[in-house]
């Protein structure tokens, strides 16, 4: 079908991007001054795109729901950013990063996009250092690296446990430079509620000013959606409270295909749920798996005794512990990819070996690392026969230097000291690989509407590797979109300013105000959170870490039912004028209630297990891989791209076949 033209350039993989850049049309500097671009979302993908486009000379308007672009949820990324710099001389290369990413994504991403990502990755680090991003350094003054899951090299650059904040502050600073020059006009505390199409092209948006409540029209020659992922469809996730699918979903309703909605990353190391009041979950960085060992008791009696508070984890000897990742995956051990680690934790907990009150937690233990680092330190200090206390003291210092802020965060939430007793962790929804379908140029199926970062689906396949989200956000925004969007905008040099005084804007604005009125006129039985929590429970139980046809079919029914109930009975207090946080939430939940159903529908049609999508019906039956996920390349080697047709149940499926010319399709083994 022609509507799914991926536009992958011809030629050898390694030359595609260079050739493409050389052959696409450019806009001359004088003409750029006459072209307006709207960027929605100001995280790494949006902030970097806005800054670069403004620097090139376009007039940029940015929109974010937060009070400042600096608060976008990229800020919360902890562990690091990958780049194929090979500074460690451990065999890294563009090809290897490309290979790891395609394999890590379980062969459900597009080769050409991933190769380009790997190709520009090194440049991101150069760029960020030039901008003053304070990455961690070694004593010689050069940049330090660490390892992340699913790879055998150290290619992750980091700034302690807050790499995301430092990179976002870099992009935000680049934005500030352009705001100061008048090239970016920021609209903070604004939420995009529709995209406006004129003659089939995206020519603007409708936004609500979250302070005054006013509905505004904004026109541009192109619209970039960099609005992040939709993990909050699960209610509990590591996303920010405001993270939402609304902008992407509105574009979907206007014609942008939604790709692989069921591909969700459930991150293995999060702080377990403590009670019904819980509003969100907190991630403990994957970098902790560099030094922490994951285990549960070997004997079920011990697990039971620990749950009942009769035994402490520190009382169990080495022989009484089951380091199940090291046991099952000797080659990668504790550093298997996230989907594998999460499923393994669920498997142990379902079998009754969980270690907290609810039975849904495993240990992440730093004892071995503390003692190892402590002994190293004692040795370098030339201390003869150091006491165990001294070794421990040294070791705890080293761990504190590496992960201090994460340990502090854990202690504040759980009220236990992770230096003395192992951390308890459990998987939680963290990232969504699915998103708006885009071609090689990052354009959606709406002309002139682009999607970057987590909001698109393009690079991570069915599972994202750690430290690759930051890489993709910045690659898209700094280095890819600024080129590809120019090719499109080169047709607009004579278009002139886009008027908002047209029937198309009129219709879109009416559509928005009508929906708000409808949200405010529910019978008032239940709060927005009531519905959001219910939706989250359906998603977690039936579309979570493990899925089957029956559960998914039930989920589709239940979500449709819940959506009906929501529209009839939701309670949104106050008025649509001025600040109304319940109204904001209601709008977002109303979109989640549609996306959730499409999500389940997508998971149902994909009757294979791949990456984070685990279908209980599709499991290896014998051999070394027995019990592991079974991918089905013959029938499912495609991207599912859904076209909006009214109700989610009527969405039409389009398939983009994935062609692998440079990588051999293999069973993903981490054994």
């Amino acid at each position: 079908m022609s509507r799914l033209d991926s536009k992958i350039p011809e030629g050898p993989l390694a030359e595609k991007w260079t050739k493409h850049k050389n052959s696409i049309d450019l806009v001359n500097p004088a003409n750029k001054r006459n072209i307006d671009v709207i960027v929605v979302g100001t995280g790494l993908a949006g902030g970097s795109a806005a800054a670069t486009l403004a620097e090139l000379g376009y007039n940029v308007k940015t929109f974010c729901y937060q009070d400042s672009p600096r608060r976008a949820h990229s800020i919360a990324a902890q562990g690091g950013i990958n780049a194929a710099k090979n500074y460690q001389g451990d065999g890294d290369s563009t090809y290897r990063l490309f290979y790891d990413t395609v394999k890590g994504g379980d062969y459900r991403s597009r080769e050409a996009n991933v190769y380009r990502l790997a190709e520009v990755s090194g440049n991101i680090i150069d760029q960020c250092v030039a901008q003053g991003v304070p990455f961690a350094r070694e004593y010689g003054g050069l940049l330090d690296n660490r390892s992340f899951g699913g790879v055998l090299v150290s290619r992750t650059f980091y700034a302690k446990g807050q790499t995301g904040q430092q990179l976002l502050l870099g992009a935000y600073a680049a934005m500030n430079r352009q705001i100061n020059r008048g090239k970016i006009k920021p609209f903070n505390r604004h939420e995009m509620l529709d995209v406006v199409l004129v003659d089939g092209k995206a020519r603007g948006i409708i936004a609500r000013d979250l302070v005054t409540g006013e509905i505004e029209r904004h026109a541009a020659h192109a619209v970039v959606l960099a609005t992040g992922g939709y993990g909050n469809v699960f209610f509990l996730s590591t996303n920010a409270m405001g993270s939402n699918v609304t902008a992407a979903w509105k574009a979907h309703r206007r014609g942008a295909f939604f790709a692989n909605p069921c591909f969700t990353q459930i991150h293995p190391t999060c702080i377990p749920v403590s009670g019904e009041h819980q509003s969100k979950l907190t991630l403990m960085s994957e970098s902790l798996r560099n030094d922490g060992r994951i285990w549960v008791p070997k004997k079920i009696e011990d697990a039971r005794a620990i749950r009942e508070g009769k035994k402490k984890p520190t009382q169990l000897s080495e022989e009484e512990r089951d380091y199940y990742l090291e046991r099952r995956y000797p080659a990668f051990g504790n550093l298997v990819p996230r989907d594998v680690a999460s499923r393994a934790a669920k498997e142990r907990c379902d079998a009754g070996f969980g270690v907290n009150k609810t039975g849904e937690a495993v240990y992440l233990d730093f004892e071995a690392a503390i003692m190892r680092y402590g002994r190293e330190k004692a040795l370098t200090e030339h201390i003869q026969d150091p006491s165990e206390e001294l070794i421990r003291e040294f070791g705890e210092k080293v761990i504190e230097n590496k992960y201090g802020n994460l340990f502090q965060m854990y202690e504040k939430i759980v009220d236990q000291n992770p230096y003395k007793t192992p951390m308890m962790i459990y998987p939680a929804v963290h990232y969504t690989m699915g998103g708006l379908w885009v071609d090689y140029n990052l354009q959606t199926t709406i002309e002139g509407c682009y999607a970057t970062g987590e909001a698109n689906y393009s690079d991570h396949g069915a599972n994202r590797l750690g430290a690759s989200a930051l890489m993709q956000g910045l690659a898209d925004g700094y280095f890819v979109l600024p080129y590809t969007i120019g090719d499109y905008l080169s047709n607009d040099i004579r278009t002139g300013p886009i008027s908002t005084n047209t029937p198309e804007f009129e219709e879109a604005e009416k559509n928005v105000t009508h929906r708000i009125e409808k949200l405010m006129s529910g019978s008032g039985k239940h709060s927005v959170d009531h519905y959001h929590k219910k939706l989250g429970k359906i998603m977690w139980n039936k579309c979570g870490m493990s899925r089957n046809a029956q559960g998914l079919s039930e989920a589709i029914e239940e979500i449709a039912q819940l959506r009906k109930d929501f529209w009839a009975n939701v309670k949104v207090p106050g008025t649509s004028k001025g600040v109304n946080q319940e109204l904001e939430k209601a709008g977002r939940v109303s979109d989640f209630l549609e996306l959730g159903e499409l999500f389940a529908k997508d998971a149902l049609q994909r009757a294979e297990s791949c990456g984070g999508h685990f279908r209980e019906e599709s499991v290896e039956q014998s051999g070394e891989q027995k019990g592991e996920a079974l991918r089905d390349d013959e029938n499912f080697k495609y991207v599912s791209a859904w076209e909006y047709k009214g109700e989610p149940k009527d969405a039409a499926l389009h398939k983009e076949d994935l062609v692998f010319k440079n990588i051999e399709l293999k069973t993903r083994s981490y054994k």
Partner: protein
Amino acid sequence: MKLTLKIWRQENAAAKGGIQSYPIDGIEGDMSFLEMLDVLNEQLISKGDDPVVFDHDCREGICGSCSLQINGEPHGPDRLITTCQLHMRMFKDGDTITIEPFRAAAFPVIKDLMVDRTAFDRIQQAGGYISVNTSGNTIDANAIPVNKEDADESFNAATCIGCGACVAACKNASAMLFTAAKVSQFALLPQGKVEAATRVLNMVEQMDKEGFGNCTNTGACEVECPKGISLENIARMNREYLSASLKG
């Protein structure tokens, strides 16, 4: 836990605000402070009252959105955390908790506990960046080694989350700690040295324009800062400012 909440309610920037009292029950120690407010809001909504408006987003202490003055202290009684990381186990059954917005002339109230902190954005727009293009055509990241101590100090300054607790803690509502952290991050790195003089002059000028008060070295900002930003940054900014002024 049973608590009495005394919360600042204010309809909008122009309206006159006041404290209102709300009894609340069934609060558990494992709840975060904001989850406790979620419980209150659910109750208000079910009674048909307007829920309390407050800024929050990441709820893990890094976005800098949350901004409550709790019993007179920004981010409440615990140290080195934001309000979203404050847990109810810090309080006792029967306690009365007073919750107000961050107070400063430069942070006008928008509604209830939500304030306008765009003054911080404008200070950074005045010079909180290094003027390099984002084309990627720069030198290799390892071409300029950076002394580890300077890199670490720069990082420590850069951990500022722009929440505004320093301003709210200061009796003069001064933004010196915030501005100094932003100036220091760049001043400590070789990449930031090129524009150091104009940067500090422009940022301080904007800070003064926004109506923040003067620094009288009480150190309250450092005590309340959720990221432990050191007062040394203020000393560094003063040196940078003095040397830039003399050059000018």
